[in-house]
């Protein structure tokens, strides 16, 4: 009986060690992720002045949104809206694709939260970013 208990203790310990090794690396080298990065990169040249002027800001959920529509000339508003929704489409696809590429679709919201923090962290001074308390300028 005693040896059986010992066996279980050993089993328990080995399971714990597996647990420690479980937190692995994350895969981002897939064609899908590369294509989305490329697409976002080419859009960034158009978005960058909008971030600087405060017309568009970074949201707390890893996306972007129109922050100050009045700073956008009326005829351009439609195209800015289209730009924002295209960017958000890519971003959502990116978070989903990273989760899928790593075999854990359920990680999507964690990935999205991590990206949200990193986007805001890396935003340039003067850009508008959203937090739990609302919009503020970096």
């Amino acid at each position: 009986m005693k040896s059986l208990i010992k066996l279980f203790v050993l089993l328990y310990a080995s399971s714990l060690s597996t647990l420690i090794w479980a937190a692995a690396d994350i895969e981002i080298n897939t064609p899908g992720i590369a294509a989305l990065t490329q697409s976002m990169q080419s859009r960034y040249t158009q978005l960058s002045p909008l971030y600087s002027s405060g017309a568009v800001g970074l949201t707390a959920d890893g996306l972007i949104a129109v922050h100050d529509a009045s700073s956008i000339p009326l005829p351009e508003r439609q195209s800015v809206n289209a730009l924002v929704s295209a960017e958000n489409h890519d971003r959502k696809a990116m978070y989903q694709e990273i989760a899928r590429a790593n075999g854990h679709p359920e990680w999507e919201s964690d990935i999205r939260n991590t990206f949200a923090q990193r986007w805001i962290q890396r935003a340039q001074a003067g850009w508008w970013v959203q937090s739990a308390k609302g919009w503020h300028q970096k």
Partner: protein
Amino acid sequence: MTRNLFVLSIAGTALAACVTINIYFPAAATAKAADKIIDEVMQTQTGHSETPDAKPVENIPSKEVK
């Protein structure tokens, strides 16, 4: 008594096995991966001088640990 201990250790092992299946979300690795992607997305932004008193844009070395 021993029977109780036996059941307890089985329960403990089962619990440990359950937790093992739930792999932790690698938060640090994801933050690093996010930085890499964000760097790549924003890199086209070098020749853009929107700010009037902008110093010559120096390439800020991205945090490449290792």
